[in-house]
């Protein structure tokens, strides 16, 4: 760090500190009492309310206060789930016309394939709900809640491989390093529960492809935002959050004293250097201390009723499954966690798709529908946005050889389907349309940045005004793109 930079950083943080010490419970007057750590956090919260009053977030009346993002990692095939294309079955095995593909970039897995035999869905579609939304037979539960969800058939992205595509969805950029959506929201909207992190991540493995694509923790990273805003992964099993529990023999009072002393030292350090990451660190220690009791509480599903387990399905009794995570998501939302992100892996069916996708769908179908209905009956759906979808779609032609009952599909960025529910989304509708091959969008395309802008809009945030200055530039989740899709708003 150059001297000049140190000086300017210092000047910057001095302003911040002045601000903090002016508030009645700011750092300046923080006593060395046991509440020391608390006051640091409170200072943080005051910034939130200050920001609400002065900086104007939310910019306008929000529809949603919270988000549950059921990320379907690997790229679920739209043709077997939401986008019914009878023509593909009629033309089964015939080559995809070049006029349709029109020079689309292909992955290394099919780029050298000699032919592109079209593959129709093995599963039948029916119309459901008042709007007659077409869904396939492997979604027996999602189809029952057709009146409560909005299916978007015209999503598109730019990335064709998993990691860039997921990173793009999560951070608005294909290159790693930007903050994830949950981090942006934590930064923009602040916390409503000082005992739990603002951004919680839950992972599950699909049965459709057990050894699927891995996920990296940077997908829920805070990027250049304060590390206070990073996603915290809750695991199934004994230790939901790693390294959270005290070593044997340490009392809670002892821990408290250590943290107080540590905060005092860190505070001195902050006085000298003014690095805001130091306050983040103090707050994180404090959060970890609180999570020692709040996390076991939220993870303890013992008192959930039998009716609840029936809704979410038998898998919900098995920790670490998607169904169990969906139930946990509801519990976290009830505790005002701002952003709960589930990742369900295993949607990457390059071969043996019909059998594998059936299992994948079985993993998530009932629990996803149950989550929406559970939130609805509890009166939480109106302010909770639920999103279900992956990073891209799949090709309408088979990767590898196609047979009567088996085929695979490669990655396809030009069109895919997701659904959303609650939180100000218009329920019971289909948005967007693809051509009869399902390959290209012919109506109402929704780009990843549009999706992000719309999501922020529902949370009362103007996506162009939620920014963070870093390396001399103001960054936003939607980069320099994105339009709110007004037709999706209730």
């Amino acid at each position: 760090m150059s001297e000049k930079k140190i000086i300017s950083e210092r000047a910057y943080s001095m302003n911040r500190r002045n601000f903090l010490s002016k508030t009645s419970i700011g750092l300046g007057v923080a006593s060395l009492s046991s509440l020391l750590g608390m006051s640091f956090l409170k200072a943080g919260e005051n910034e939130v309310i200050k920001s609400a009053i002065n900086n104007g977030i939310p910019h306008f009346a929000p529809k949603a206060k919270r988000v549950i993002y059921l990320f379907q990692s690997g790229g679920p095939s739209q043709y077997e789930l939401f986008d019914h294309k009878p023509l593909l079955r009629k033309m089964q095995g015939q080559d995809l016309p070049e006029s349709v593909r029109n020079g689309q970039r292909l992955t290394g897995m099919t780029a050298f394939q000699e032919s592109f035999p079209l593959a129709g869905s093995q599963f039948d579609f029916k119309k459901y709900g008042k709007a007659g939304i077409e869904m396939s037979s492997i979604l027996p539960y999602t189809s029952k809640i057709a009146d409560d969800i909005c299916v978007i058939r015209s999503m598109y992205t730019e990335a064709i491989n998993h990691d860039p595509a997921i990173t793009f969805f999560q951070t608005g950029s294909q290159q790693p390093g930007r903050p994830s959506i949950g981090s942006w929201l934590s930064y923009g909207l602040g916390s409503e529960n000082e005992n739990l992190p603002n951004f919680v991540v839950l992972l599950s493995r699909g049965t459709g492809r057990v050894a699927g694509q891995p996920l990296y923790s940077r997908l829920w990273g805070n990027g250049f935002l304060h590390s206070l805003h990073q996603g915290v992964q809750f695991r199934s099993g004994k230790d939901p959050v790693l390294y959270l529990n005290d070593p044997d023999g340490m009392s809670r009072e002892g821990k408290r004293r250590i943290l107080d002393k540590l905060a005092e030292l860190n505070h001195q350090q902050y006085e000298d250097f003014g690095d805001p990451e130091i306050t983040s660190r103090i707050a994180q220690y404090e959060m970890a201390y609180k999570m020692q009791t709040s996390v076991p509480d939220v993870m303890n599903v013992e008192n959930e009723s039998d009716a609840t387990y029936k809704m979410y399905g038998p898998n919900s009794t098995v920790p670490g499954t998607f169904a169990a995570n969906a139930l946990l998501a509801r519990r976290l939302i009830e505790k005002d966690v701002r952003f709960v992100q589930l990742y369900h892996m295993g949607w990457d069916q390059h071969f043996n798709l019909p059998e594998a996708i059936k299992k994948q769908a079985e993993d998530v179908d009932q629990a996803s529908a149950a989550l929406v209905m559970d939130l609805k009956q509890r009166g939480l759906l109106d302010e909770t946005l639920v999103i279900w979808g992956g990073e891209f779609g799949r090709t309408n032609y088979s990767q590898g050889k196609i047979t009567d009952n088996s085929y695979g599909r490669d990655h396809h960025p030009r069109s895919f389907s997701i659904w959303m529910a609650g939180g100000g989304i218009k329920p019971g509708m289909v948005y967007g349309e693809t051509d009869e091959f399902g390959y290209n969008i012919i109506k109402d395309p929704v780009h990843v940045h549009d999706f992000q802008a719309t999501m922020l809009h529902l949370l009362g945030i103007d996506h162009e005004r939620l920014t963070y200055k870093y390396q001399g530039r103001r960054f936003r989740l939607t980069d320099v793109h994105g339009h709110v899709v007004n037709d999706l708003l209730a």
Partner: protein
Amino acid sequence: MIELLGRLHPLVLHLPIGILALAYILEVYARFSKDSIHKVQSVILLFSGISATVAILTGLLLIRSGDYSGALVNNHKWVAIALGVVTWTLYFLQLSSLKHTYHFMMVSSAVLLGVTGHLGGTITHGEDFLFKKSGPEVRPDIEAAVLYKDIIHPIFEDKCISCHNPSKLKGELDMSEVTALLMGGEDGKVILPENPLESPLWKHINLPLSDDEHMPPDGKDQLTQEDLELIHWWLKSGAKFDRLAKETEGFANYESQLEKYLAPPEVDIFAKVEQPDSSALLKLQSKGYSLYPTHNGSSAVYVNLSGKDDLTKRDIKAFYKIKQNVAHLNLANSGINNEMLNLLSKFKHIRKLELQNTSIGTEGLKKLKDFKYLEILNLYNTKVDSGAIDKLTHFPQLRTVYVGKTDMNPEQLDQLYHLLPRLEVIGDVGTDLFKDAALRSPVIEADSEIFQDSVEISLVLNFKDVDIKYIINDGDTVDYTGPFVIYETSEIKTLAQKEGWKSSEVNSKNFIKKGLDIANINLKNRPHERYSSFAKKVLIDEKVGSDLFSDGAWVGYEGEHASMVLELQEATEVSNVTVGVLEATGSYIFYPKAYEISISEDGKNFKKMVSQDYAIAKGPSQAGRKNMTFNFAPSKAKSIRLDIKSHLVNPEWHAAPGAKNWIFIDEIIIN
């Protein structure tokens, strides 16, 4: 002529009132003054009597004209007559010397005057003229308006009901309530539900103004063209009383006309409420409360007290400083109780109130103020019962109420729907949607599938109150109570049962008792180099390979058969051989095509004991392993030769047909 005299009643009636009032004033004056009022009072009382009599007579004529009837008119008549009699009595008493009686009658006349005056006033101005409800009327917006209740009825109220009400009952018709309206008047029904446009009501309001039967009568406030159009629309659409305006056919044509009857959509009271004091917000925040303006520049504040199980009255009162601004109050999962609910009355602009998962009940709910702006009320998982239904009708803007997991039963909820058609009632979901729930199979856990002398087996299912049953080798069904031990090669089958659930599928697993010690394995051909490290050890290490071919426990052959000879320590009687194999078609791995087992006592002359063929898989499958056990007649052997034949290439249906495929082997056991 008589009619004209009758109509003089409203003019004449004020004379006795004024004159009697003067008499009372003089009487009071006389008590404090020495002046004599005797003569003046006599004249005044005389005129009181005369004017009262005239008023009564004109009143009686008015009744005779038939315009007025009903209990109210009747009462007015008799009280007025009594007043007339009392007034004349007063006149004569004043001339006599019966002081006490005179004063008593004076007071009586004042009471009668008050009563009859009030009754008369009620007849002319309507029931609630005196005690009219004050405050702005809250009307539903276009989304929620019921055509009759919110649009047609107000027209009637304005133009018809001042005469056709239960007190006046002109033409014996009462239009103030739906049931009374349907009953009709003296000439029968006025609304014909089967054929609404033929209804007498519609005919009467469309007669020319000059016609005596025209309604409202000439001289009264007339229906406008717009009123007529809306009434026509209502009748034409079937004269329904509970249909939402926007769901009535032809809505689009009338939408613009409805505006004056309805509040603009999303009436925002907070546009008029002053901004909260930001220092008050900060102070509350610093006390640890969670609250913030719903958005930038809004005076509406969201207060979140959810999860606060030690909630006290003080916590609620803390927000009185910003009571005008509380738009959304979240008390979910908090310690709020019935007693504390009336404290919420101060938050009169509240739009959303969350009380779910608390101990409040009907009794407490009744204490809630009749919030004018309340749109959403969450009572999920509380103790409210059907007694609360009536209360819910007191919130004019209520849109959504959550009553799942309460003591209201489905029929009562149905009733709520009929009472408040525009209200969205959200009860329990899922009873029909998620009924087919099956249990998961118990997981069979043990240290190893291959055991030396015995192995302890646990059956695990992470769910409370389930019954786990199991069978060992087609024996009797046993209730699982805890881990058990087996001593022989066995197949364990298990399932779970629970009341109200479908039983789980059967889960089964084989446990194999370790066989004879194998001294050496002589591999006739090398396995693939990637899956051959320690092959000789791996095959007999008592650790079974998992479903994952690359876990290090498997020995794999690509595009070739496997052949090996197993050497025992010494010649022993053998009767079966078990071979573990893997299939994962996506990874080009198939179960073997054939197994040949030969034994030898000298290691040179082999005798074929087993030769079994198997067909290749017909379609793709997920990874899975199985144990193939081959029994044969017990014979002495020192060497056992295994020939495991591969299909060599992928089948036609495979994504890569004709490509070399694999066999994977792990764990060979000889007994």
